[in-house]
Structures are given as structure tokens and as C-alpha cells.
């Protein structure tokens, strides 16, 4: 059987000159690549589901003021340390009972709480509603996670790329600068920040901006060094493609996978960093909660009120899980080699 080239309709062909024109129109990044990536992302079931979940978490956390049944900072000391009670759920641990001298006791009755008042996640040592605090705390932690991710993706990636692409003396200087930055004790800086600014989001971002992106910068540099000497990059360079363009459209997509993984890791690190700052007095203004401060309070009383540790830990893990699934999908979508 022989194919007749004349029989193929013209519409199946795409002409190189047309594509080139479109490319030039859109500037450095080829639109087809990002569009492709988006389409590939939408085809990945796990990624879509996790994207939706992530969206839900973000929406829920940011509508905390509307959803929270109580003021997260309102104390009610006589109702301190009540275990979770969810109406209609009889499972031990969620029914308001906890053991006293070996026997389960209805803590709500003991504290004189009316039958129609429920604390879904229990209360803390001040009698504050942990459900409301978790909602608000998630919001703050998400903001911090977002800031950390943005810092990683901007300063970290740009620094690493520049350092590796420029090479030579610039690279050496930039690397020594990184060593100096990570060598100076952050805590000294943090205490000094405290003298200049008061606690709050701004201080946290400032403290994060100093050092949180350093591992990312190192990693991006290492990866770029590897890729910039690969044949296709050399070929692009031989063709006269500019360094910036090589970095953005040849190197970056190829290291996207590792960048995404690294970003995911910097998120919990940032959340715990905020906790640490809170206790020095630079983090969120007390009594505002974050997932980190909830966890930190919880681990200390783990033997007595286990739910105070499990709940924030579970929320944090859930967020991380969704983030990771989404990131995996994102990476697959961004990786040009995964094209079918």
C-alpha cells in the first residue's frame, strides 16, 4: 500500500513561519508551552481533584470569620480543655467524653456546658474554641506558606539561575554571599527585627525574606550548572539565543520538577519558622493562632489532651498532602519530556 502525498489535506499541516510569527508576538515564553502545560494539568485527575481541594481549603480558611462558631480569642476559663464533641457522632474521642481515673466521664456535663453547645475540636487551656482557632490559624499559616513559596520562586530561583548562568567570578561572589547569609545567626537578626518593628505579618515576611530562599537558590544553581552544558542548550546558544531566554525557556522548564518539590518542602519549614518567631515575640501577635502555635501548644500536653496535638497536626498534613498532589500534577504538566 502506498500513501499518496497529494491526498493529505492541507489543513493537517502547520507551517513553520506561522508558528514563528506567533512566538515572536508573545515574547520570551512560548505561549504554546504554557497552554500545553495547562491542558496537561487538566487531564491529570489527581491534580484536578487536589486543585479543587486546595481551593476549598483556601476558601474555607479565608472565610473563617463567617464560618467560625466562636470568637477564636474569646476565653471561657471554666470550659477549658474540653475534648471534641460533634453532635450525632458517638465515637469515643469525638463525643465529649474523656477518661478520669480510668473511666470515661462526660466533660461537658462536668463543666456545666449546655447540651446544645458543642466544640467540634474541643477547647484549649483558656476555654477557647479550637475549631475557630484552627480555622483562623490555617488562614495565617496559608498566608505564610504562600509568602514562603513566592520568595522561593522569585528570589531563590532568580538568584540560583543568575549565579549559574553567569558563572565565573559572579558565581563565586554570589555563592560566598549565600554562605555569609546562612552563616550569620538568624536569631540575632530576629531579635533586632523585634526592636525595629513590632510583631505581625510584616516582621514574619521580613524574617523569611532574609534566609528562607537560600536552599532553593543553591538547588537551582546546582541544577542549572548541570543543564546549561547539555547539548540542546549548547545548540540554542550556538544559534544565538540570548542567555535570559535560554534560562527561561530551556533551563527553567527542565528544572521545574525539582523546584516544585523544593517549594513544597519550604512550606512546612516556613510554618514552623513562624511558630518559633511567635515564641520570641516576632511572629503573629498573641493571642492570634497559627497552625504552628497550635501544634506547639499541643505537643506539650499530648499525654493529657491528645486532641490538642492531633487536630492541628492532621490539618497540616492534609494541607501538605493536597499541596503535594497538586505539585506533582504541576510538575508533570510543566515537564516538556512528559509530552505524549
Amino acid at each position, binding site marked *: 500500500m502506498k500513501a499518496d502525498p497529494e491526498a493529505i489535506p492541507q489543513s493537517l499541516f502547520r507551517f513553520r513561519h506561522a508558528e514563528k510569527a506567533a512566538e515572536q508576538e508573545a515574547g520570551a515564553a512560548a505561549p504554546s508551552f504554557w497552554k500545553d502545560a495547562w491542558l496537561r494539568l487538566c487531564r491529570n485527575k489527581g491534580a484536578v481533584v487536589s486543585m479543587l481541594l486546595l481551593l476549598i481549603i483556601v476558601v474555607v480558611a479565608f472565610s473563617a470569620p463567617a464560618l467560625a462558631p466562636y470568637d477564636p480569642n474569646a476565653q471561657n476559663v471554666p470550659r477549658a*480543655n474540653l475534648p471534641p464533641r460533634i453532635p450525632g457522632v458517638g465515637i469515643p474521642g469525638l463525643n465529649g467524653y474523656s477518661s478520669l481515673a480510668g473511666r470515661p466521664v462526660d466533660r461537658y456535663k462536668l463543666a456545666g456546658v449546655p447540651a446544645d453547645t458543642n466544640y467540634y475540636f474541643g477547647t484549649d487551656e483558656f476555654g477557647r474554641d479550637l475549631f475557630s482557632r484552627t480555622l483562623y490559624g490555617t488562614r495565617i499559616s496559608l498566608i505564610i506558606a504562600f509568602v514562603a513559596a513566592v520568595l522561593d520562586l522569585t528570589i531563590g530561583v532568580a538568584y540560583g539561575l543568575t549565579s549559574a548562568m553567569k558563572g565565573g567570578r559572579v558565581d563565586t561572589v554570589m555563592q560566598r554571599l549565600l554562605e555569609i547569609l546562612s552563616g550569620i545567626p538568624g536569631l540575632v537578626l530576629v531579635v533586632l527585627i*523585634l526592636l525595629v518593628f513590632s510583631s505581625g505579618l510584616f516582621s514574619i515576611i521580613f524574617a523569611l525574606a532574609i534566609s528562607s530562599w537560600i536552599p532553593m537558590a543553591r538547588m537551582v544553581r546546582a541544577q542549572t550548572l548541570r543543564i546549561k552544558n547539555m547539548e540542546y542548550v549548547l545548540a540554542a546558544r550556538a544559534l544565538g539565543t540570548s542567555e535570559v531566554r535560554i534560562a527561561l525557556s530551556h533551563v527553567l522548564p527542565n528544572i521545574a520538577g525539582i523546584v516544585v518539590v523544593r517549594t513544597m518542602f519550604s512550606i512546612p519549614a516556613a510554618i514552623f519558622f513562624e511558630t518559633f518567631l511567635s515564641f520570641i515575640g516576632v511572629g503573629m501577635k498573641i493571642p492570634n493562632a497559627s497552625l504552628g502555635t497550635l501544634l506547639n501548644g499541643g505537643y*506539650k500536653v499530648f*499525654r493529657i489532651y491528645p486532641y490538642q496535638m492531633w487536630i492541628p497536626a492532621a490539618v497540616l498534613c492534609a494541607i501538605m498532602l493536597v499541596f503535594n498532589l497538586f505539585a506533582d500534577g504541576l510538575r508533570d504538566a510543566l515537564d516538556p519530556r512528559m509530552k505524549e
Partner: protein
Amino acid sequence: MKRFVSGLLTALLAAGTALLTSCGGTATASQASSAGSGAPASSAASAQEKSKVLNWVAPGEVTTMDSGKSYDVISAEQISFQADTLYRINEKNEAVPNLAKALPQVSKDGLTATVEIRDDARYSNGDKITAADIVYAAQRVVDPATGSQSANNLTYLKNAKEIIEKKLPVTDLGVKALSDTKLQFTLTAPTPYLATSLSDTLVSPVSKKFVESQGKNYGLNAQSLLASGPFVLKDWNGTDISWKYVKNPYYWDAKNIYFDQINVQVVKEVATGVNLYEAGKLDGAAVTGDYLTLYKSKPDLVTVQTLRMTNLEMGISSNKSLQNENLRKALLYAVDRSELAQSILNGGGVPAAGIIPDGIAVSPEGGKSVKDDFPKLVYTDKKKAKEYFAKALSELGTKSITLRLVTSDTDDSIKTGQYLQNAYQTALPGLKINLANVPATVRFKEMMSYKFDLALGGWTGEYDPTSYIKQHETGYEHNHSQWKSAELTGIVKALETSDGTDFVKRWAHLKEGNQYLLDHAVVVPLTQEAKNYLVNPKLKGYQTHVLGTPIDVTRARFEGGAAS
């Protein structure tokens, strides 16, 4: 190159597997090893030996074992194992003779006192302890060259202040050895608290010969210390988190010392301490916070009040609103101290009765405690507080007041701060409190610059209750509120000088000072700190006291068989 890489990887993997298997197999493999050389003290000892070994606990590292330099409770407690004192504090917070033969003989004007010390007392190297050693110890504390942060604690001795400030030589200090066993103290002013003050390890005997032989290294490790007390320190090289004491055979009262050895372990995490205690690895554990609720009404729990008063201090000089007495009174009456002490601090404190902590001293007539004898001026009355607050608002011509509350970054401070914020905002609508929790050095700097609104501070005295009143006296450096009052200055002056030997008058002046400070609401007393311990119920004969070290186990013993 390839070979090298593969070799490296194999080695890495092998190491990993080795670790994996050793962790998996620890249950069996490790039991064998613990019976071997790996485990001293805690496990291998036989039951009979163990009965005379105490496994004790410390909440943090000792900052110093040098009796002349200690300034914190942890160090003072550890030093008291190995340094003998002239007097000891008993369960009733009274001084009883120890190294001294009897209570001090005080002259009529109350300005000189003589103390006779035992002639059978020896150091752990067998050298005799003489009166000159006490003189040397006291001189060493005030000597600027020593750099003792507790030097001010000896200002009851004549010329101490001038020596500390380098205005007089150390030999001018008001303590002399009249003979090998006779001491004479010259005092700044008459005081009823001389004997209790002399129970401090700051004036424990120190051998000049030994200190000079050690030079710069004195007190830096177990070898460079000489014990005058019941035990000798071992295995401590300056910054450890575990060490031990062995019985001092030369100690004059060695026959009443039961334990041959005391192992001390620093445990900072309360939960870990409780776990170790429950597992029988420790005979005592410091317990705080929520863990107290687990032990309420169990024989293991021992609570001791301390001299630490936690107060809400006010920057009266720097904040216009706080210069309004009605506002300060609103703050004084609005807070529920028993809820704070019981529910928030979980027994880590008791409600403050006044400016002066309970237990520090008793009335000269009838021996009544501060709590019983002083009028009850610190209480909760939210209605009254509201009235005062309304008055304050109208006087200040405003509808709301915002104050910043500075606290340290310790657990209890943060908790108390949060509680106060909520309590005040709820009880006094229109009042807004902003919390700032900062490192202790930062809080302290703010307070010492006298520029702050509210601060969670406090005062820890020694033996003389005067310091609690004096803290607020016009010219005093640590008068953080910068409250100026000729009346209070008069009271403090009377306490320090003119009251002389008339201890009844003196007590009346203390009462007056307390009343003055609370009438003007210069400070808001909150709680008197309490320390809580879990102690093996078989341990008997230990003492707890407000003065000195909270819990003294040097003369304790196990009863009813071996330790747990």
C-alpha cells in the same frame, strides 16, 4: 571514578542497613548491652545499694557551683548539697543553728552580732573550718574582682555597699573573726532577719588556701571545689546536665546523712520528667502546667511557695492615663487571681495577698503570717473596678484607653499575659490591651528605661521583706513605675534605720508600706509563685520552705524498703 562512586554508594547503603537492623533489633540486642558496661548508676545497681542512692532532678543547668557567685534558685539548691551554712531553715521558715552553735548574740543597739561556730567542722579534704573562712567567703562575695551578681545581698553588712562600688577595700567589710570559732558581724542597721540571712550559701565557709591554690579555675569543675557540706560534688565539669554527689565523710553531722550518693539529672521538658518519674528512673520531678492536674490529690505531689511575686507593673511616669489613680485601681480590682492561679497557672502560683509574699516573715507579736496579719487589700471586685474605670474615663475625658502589656517569652508569662488581656477587656469595656511577648532582656530594658505601659514583672526578695516595699521607693533604681512619694520614702527610711531594735514598730511600718502602695495602686500584685514537685512517696524527712531552697533533700531518707 565510576568505581569510587559505586564503592561510596555501597558503603552508604551498608551503613544504612546496619543502622536499620540495629534499630529493629534493639529490643533484644540492647538488653544485653545495658547489662554490660554501658549503664552506670541507673540500672545495674543491686537493690541494697540502690536504697541509699537518690535519683534527683534539676529543672536546668547550674549556672555556677561557686557559693559566692550563685544568684539563681537552681544553683543555690545544688550548692546547698555541698556547702554548709551557719543556719538552716526549718519547715516553719525559722533559722536553726547548723554550723553555728547557737542563734546570733546581738548587742543592745542591734548593730553588732557574735556567732560561735562548731569546732568539729571539716572540709571534704579534712581541713578544719574556721571563722576566718566565713570572713573570707563574705569578703569574696562583695569583692568587685569576683564579679558576683549577688553582691548586693550582703548589704546588711557594714561597708558592703561601698566595697561593691570600689570605694573601700574588702577588708573593711563588717565581719571579723575574733578567734578560730568566734565571728563578729557589724550591721548596717538592726535587723530581725540576721539568722535567716546567714542561712544563705553566699556566706558558706570558703577555704582561702584552697581558692588560692586553684587560682582562676576555682569552682569551674568538681575537682576545683571543696565541700563543707554533707556531700561532695563529683562528675561535674562545668556545664553538664547530669552529675552526682557522694557523702562527705568529714561532715560534722555525717551520722544524720542517710544517702551515700545522690545522682542529679537535668530534665527541662516537663513531660519527660514525668515519664522518667513514672518509670522509676527518677525519685523526683519538677511538674508544671497541665501535668499538675494529673497528680492533684496524689501523695506524690509536693507544692512549695516561693518568694517570687508576679506583679503587673505600670509605667506611671511615662503614660498619662496610668497617672490616673482610678484607672490603676480598676486594674487592681478587676482581675480574678484565684482563677489565674488555679486554672491558668494550674497551681504554679497562689493568689497574691499583698505586696509582701506570705511566709517570708511573721509578726513579732503572736508570730502571725503576712497573710493572716495584714489587712486584706488585694481582692477581686469587678463591680467596683467598673466604677473606678468609669470614673477614670470621665476624668481623662475619653471613651477608650489602649495599653500595651509587655511580657517575657516564657510559657507562664505568655499564658498570664493572654489571660490578663482577656480578663481586663471583658471586665472593663473600653479598655484595650495589646500584648507584646518579648525576650526577657528586651522586657527588662523597657522597664529599666521607665518607658512602658504595663509589664508583667515582679520581685524576688531574700530574707528581709523591706525590699518589696523599697522596690517602689522614689530614688530606687528598680522603681520601674517611677512613683514619687515622700511618704513612702519616709516609711522605707524608718524601716532601714530609725526602727532600730523595735521590731514591733518595724512590722507596723511594713504594714503601712503595703497599705500605702495598694491604696494608691502603685502596682498590681497578681500571684506568689509556687513550685511543684513529684516526690517518691517513700522519701521521708525532706523539708520544704519559702525561704532558701524550695526543697531540701540532704537529710532525707527512704522508708518502707527500697526505692521504687
